């Protein structure tokens, strides 16, 4: 059962032709699919308008870049060239709309490129509120979401009413619950729930209908419960910084095989951006905006107004996950991850958390060096702990 779910997810992950999306479109004549870039968009709105939401990540190490390099200089991260490659090779032709959230200037500027390259596709850059006053922030974001919903409704031919949007919110609340359960299980029993498998499930969640994901994730959790494994003498680490361009699967496996249990991470962060359920009372758009503003998540793509909180964030994450150290894994040339790293690392080290840092690219093909680095780190954490006892 476990392997059946993992294979289902792996197939989706490896399929750069988005066959699952095409199947869904065939099975739902007249319906449309809408893409979104990392890190977070409220998929509830896409869902309620009748779209299949499709997360657009790059092609990782499975895609040869032929056209994408003509759009991006070598000193820009790998993700946008990979996404352009997918688009220019026709693999994203099925998308009627694409949303570009305010993650960084690269994604922001890619929204403009998309407007020029694909004038028939609805494109919207979604700004997010960055102000400290929750009411100002919510008012702004609510207006932003209403705007997007109105536009998307026109594209799909269906502007949802409140009841429909609440239904979508309820489904995504369930998705969030199940993702929280996956993370909690891994935190408690990382030997039973390897990060490689968790990651594949999260990636599946980006391309299949949300209810299908929920069913599969529950099956997986049930399988994990009935398939207990033996704990190993691994070190527990947080992997921070990989919230946008995703590391190749091989890199995640390398960290685990080097003797680390990943007990918290930023992979496919959009699934966990809202830390609490969205309210099912009042006005649904307001509820979505409010949930964003109230999230407990601390992430590099948002401004941190509280300097104490900034210093504490890695400590809090490590404590919550029972981690002994932090691996900062950032995509090369990634502004949000790399500008934040010195501050986060300082906070972690001040809290006595050993750290290492490396950079990757989604198409990195050689993992030996990461494995060695992570292996040495895992060993040093054990020694550190032995010394502390």
């Amino acid at each position, binding site marked *: 059962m476990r392997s059946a779910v993992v294979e289902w997810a792996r197939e989706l992950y490896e399929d750069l032709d988005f066959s699952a999306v095409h199947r869904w479109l065939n099975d739902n004549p007249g319906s449309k699919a809408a893409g979104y870039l990392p890190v977070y968009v409220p998929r509830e709105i896409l869902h309620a308008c009748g779209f299949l939401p499709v997360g657009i990540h790059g092609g990782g190490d499975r895609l040869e870049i032929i056209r994408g390099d003509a759009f991006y200089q070598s000193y820009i991260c790998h993700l946008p060239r990979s996404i352009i490659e997918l688009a220019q090779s026709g693999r994203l032709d099925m998308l009627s709309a694409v949303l570009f959230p305010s993650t960084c200037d690269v994604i922001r500027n890619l929204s403009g490129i998309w407007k020029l390259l694909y004038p028939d596709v609805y494109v919207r850059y979604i700004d997010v509120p960055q102000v*400290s006053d929750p009411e100002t922030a919510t008012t702004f974001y609510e207006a932003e979401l209403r705007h997007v919903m109105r536009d998307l409704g026109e594209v799909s031919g269906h502007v949802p009413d409140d009841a429909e949007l609440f239904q979508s919110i309820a489904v995504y609340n369930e998705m969030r619950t199940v993702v929280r359960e996956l993370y909690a299980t891994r935190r408690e029993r990382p030997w039973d729930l390897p990060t490689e498998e968790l990651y594949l499930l999260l990636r599946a969640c980006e391309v299949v209908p949300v209810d299908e994901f929920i069913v599969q994730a529950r099956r997986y959790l049930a399988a994990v419960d009935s398939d207990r494994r033996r704990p190993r003498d691994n070190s527990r680490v947080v992997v921070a910084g990989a919230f946008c361009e995703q590391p190749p699967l091989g890199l995640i496996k390398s960290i685990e095989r080097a003797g680390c249990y990943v007990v918290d991470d930023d992979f496919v962060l959009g699934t966990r951006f809202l830390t609490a359920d969205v309210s099912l009372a009042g006005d649904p758009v307001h509820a979505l905006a409010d949930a964003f503003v109230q999230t407990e998540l601390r992430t590099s793509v948002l401004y941190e107004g509280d300097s104490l909180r900034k210093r504490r964030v890695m400590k809090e994450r490590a404590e919550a996950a029972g981690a002994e150290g932090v691996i900062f894994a950032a995509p090369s040339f990634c502004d949000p991850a790399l500008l934040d790293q010195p501050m986060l690392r300082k906070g972690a080290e001040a809290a006595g958390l050993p750290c290492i840092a490396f950079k990757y690219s989604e198409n990195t093909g050689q993992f030996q060096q990461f494995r060695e680095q992570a292996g040495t780190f895992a060993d040093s954490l054990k020694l550190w702990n032995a010394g502390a006892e």
Partner: protein
Amino acid sequence: MAQKEILKDRSMILQKEMIARHFERLEQAPANHEPVVYTFVPGNLTELIRSFGALPVLPEINALQSGMRKLSGDYIAEAERAGHSEDVCAYVKCDIGMVKSGNIGPSGTKLPKPDLLLLSYTGCYTFMKWFELLREEYDCPAVFFHVPYQGDGKLEPEHREYMIRQLREQVIPALEKATGRAYDEEKLRENLRLSALAEDDLVAVLQSGKLKPSPIDGYFGTVYYVGPIFSAFRGTEEGVEYYRALREEVYARAAAGLGPIVPDGSLDDQRYRLVVEGPPSWTHFRDFWKMFTDEKAVVVASTYTKVGGTYDFGFRHNPDDPLGTLADYCSGCYTNLNLPSRIEMISRYIREYEADGFVINSIKSCNSFSAGQLMILREVEKRTGVPGAFIESDLVDPRYFSQANIKNRLESYFQMIESRRQGSGTGATVASDPLTSAAVA
């Protein structure tokens, strides 16, 4: 000739004096209990800051000056030793390195600590983290002013309201707290009125680039011209005086059919008229400029000189709508415009300034400008039929300025323009058109 030199000298001397006075005043600010507010060039709220009697400090200006004074390499190394990545914006590292090395500003005086970090988040993600980093260094209050990006190519009414509300409810109270003074709207209006006067004169100067020969260099020379208005002097009498003097000086050069003053003298014989996109390389500013002037190339317009405001498309600060006008200003800064708007702006410059070509200086460590510039190159070429050149360097990181490479690329570019000219038989040469009021008004 004597009069022209006097006029030229006047604006330069004025600027030098203004800046020196400003930095002296900054150095004395703690002793004189003058509050200090750090903020960024794009979306700077100088009129508002000044209306509270506070002095602005602009970290990008300090960084670029460090670049010109060949200090940035050491500052960057210092920041990288402290854990900052080699991949991120070199301005930030230069600034952090400067702070860590004693915070001696560009004019050799010590910079005061900020009483407030006014983070005007306009068109560049890096700003957000830059001030988070500075807040760590200084342990001082910070206020965030979020300027929504013009993703759909226009300022949306809700976005304008959002900005005005932030100004009223967050920024002004933070300034009141930091300075101990109450908001004085009349003072703000007065400052805005002065800004508009200076802006009129600046636009006249910028648009003189339409003349042949152009009396200004719209990039290398104009980065000096925009200095006061992009930094501490918008909304001040000194600023008004400077731009009046500058306009007179430029008009006099135009009337005499002269080109701009460049590293080797006056560039009157202008063979190529160019538009430039992207920031310059401050560490090699003079060498870089000479690569153009050696080929008799003058820059007639540029986008970088619009990061602190796009006045040449009509915007003026409006004293009758003090907070609304600040919102409009911030939203319209060049880096806050989407890619299609940037392409349209460059294409317009090429057409209206009758340029022979355009050069994109792509900055390695600046995603805000650089991500998408290859698309800009192709689109502008397609829309205007004018060929573009693409060069790569960095703002203040001397490691990424490859003199020979850039020179070769520019030389072949000019040859290409030349052969196109001959092929098309237009044989365009620089003509001395008389100064027309329409062109520079």
